[in-house]
């Protein structure tokens, strides 16, 4: 392994969020070192579907972040190495008239924010998705929803201008008398730096604790089923109107509504269950059964399709389900970029962009106070 060298910025975490922070910091002219105790995309990123969604977000700070990210992903896809960027569009379907009404009302609030949302009549659903189940009440088409292959995307963001060290664990911080960050201690020696970006995903709380700061990031477990490769049968990212409620939900129990989508490799991905069970690494059969049943409800042909594998991710979430982005005033020089839950791939470039602007002393393009790391402390004190 090459030697650790002093850098303007050290990013902890080589997932997609850390990769984006590193990428934009390097583009802003800073020298950047990325450290990860595992490989690139070895955590939540590698266990995700790569969703770039605006459809599931209500108006607010996260939607603003998502819209900026969409623009940035499109730019990155044009300039950089391939990471299977696909602007496939999302299709939300409603099973009942009541669901359809709620869905239309949500779309009406999203449109003024810059979201494109087309109402789709029940009769027209088949022209969007020929294999959808009959009898659905209607849908909304979100042409901006897109997808990337997350591991390839992270690797692409790290492919130039960044010094990457995998297999290196951060074991502590070196802080000045004033509490300012002077460097990080690692399993492979010490590294001087004036700024550390904590992009450690579900382990961000532990990294913050090394610097003496508390950060309430916890894991939320999710599963994805992957089918055999097939000719293209599912064109959009398709999910039931109840999914957005699960994403925002606070229920510790299993919340699941299938999100079904095809991939360029021909497989169909079926997500996404959400459970707050800590780092429980088991694969409970009832959760897999339920995902399968819900997917078949949307696309009956799936009953005859084989599932080849399932994978599990732990999504980092914060108490208010918003990411934590920005400087930590308790430890000058420490920045957080974490807590994106299941939207980390979608929100990564905007997160990196915000962090890079902050690191170079530029104003953010929009109000980032809803993401402030101190917001939890204020609530509790």
């Amino acid at each position, binding site marked *: 392994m090459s030697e650790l060298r002093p850098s303007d910025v050290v990013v902890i975490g080589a997932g997609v969020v850390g990769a984006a922070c590193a990428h934009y910091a390097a583009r802003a002219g800073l020298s950047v070192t990325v450290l990860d105790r595992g490989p690139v995309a070895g955590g939540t990123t590698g266990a995700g579907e790569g969703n770039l969604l605006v459809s599931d977000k209500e108006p607010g700070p996260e939607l603003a972040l998502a819209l900026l990210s969409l623009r940035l992903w499109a730019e990155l896809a044009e300039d950089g190495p391939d990471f299977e960027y696909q602007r496939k569009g999302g299709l939300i379907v409603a099973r009942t008239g009541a669901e359809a009404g709620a869905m239309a009302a949500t779309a009406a609030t999203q449109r003024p924010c810059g979201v494109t949302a087309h109402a789709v009549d029940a009769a027209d659903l088949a022209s969007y998705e020929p294999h959808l189940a009959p009898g659905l009440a209607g849908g909304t088409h979100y042409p901006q929803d897109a997808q990337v292959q997350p591991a390839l995307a992270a690797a692409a963001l790290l492919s130039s201008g960044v010094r990457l060290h995998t297999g290196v664990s951060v074991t502590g911080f070196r802080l000045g008398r004033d509490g300012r960050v002077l460097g990080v201690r690692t399993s492979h020696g010490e590294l001087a730096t004036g700024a550390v970006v904590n992009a450690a995903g579900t382990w961000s709380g532990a990294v913050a604790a090394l610097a003496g700061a508390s950060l309430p990031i916890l894991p939320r477990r999710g599963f994805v089923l992957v089918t055999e*490769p097939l000719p293209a049968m599912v064109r959009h990212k398709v999910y039931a109107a109840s999914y957005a409620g699960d994403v925002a939900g606070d229920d510790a129990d299993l919340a699941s509504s299938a999100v079904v989508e095809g991939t360029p490799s021909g497989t169909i991905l079926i997500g996404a269950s959400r459970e707050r069970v800590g780092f429980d690494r088991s694969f409970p059969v009832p959760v897999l059964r339920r995902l399968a049943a819900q997917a078949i409800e949307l696309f009956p042909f799936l009953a005859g399709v*084989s599932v080849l594998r399932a994978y599990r991710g732990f999504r980092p979430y914060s108490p208010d389900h918003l990411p934590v982005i920005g400087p930590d005033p308790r430890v000058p020089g420490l920045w957080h970029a974490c807590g994106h839950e299941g939207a980390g791939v979608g929100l990564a470039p905007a997160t990196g962009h915000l962090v890079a602007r902050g690191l170079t002393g530029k104003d953010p393009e929009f109000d980032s106070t809803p993401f402030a790391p101190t917001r939890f402390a204020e609530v509790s004190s």
Partner: protein
Amino acid sequence: MTGASEPTPVHPPGADHFRIGVDGRPVPVEAGQTVGAAMLAAGIRSWRTTRFAGKPRGLFCGIGVCFDCLVTVNGTPSLRACLVTARPDDEVSTT
């Protein structure tokens, strides 16, 4: 379907011999044989092409591990030819 142009073996008639169809071509089977074994015995060495390079594939591991020998039987796709025991009048379609 590709295969060497070998003559189809002729089996004596009897209760433990029957035929299946492979893309409409009759293929003899001894009871208990798998679809894959019957096809190979009839000189058919491959019955699937890969989805990227279009390369022919047939039996490889022969014991249900590699999934190279996937085949459609009576309209049911993605069955392992090395594991599916042939039944009288099965219709196998290759791609």
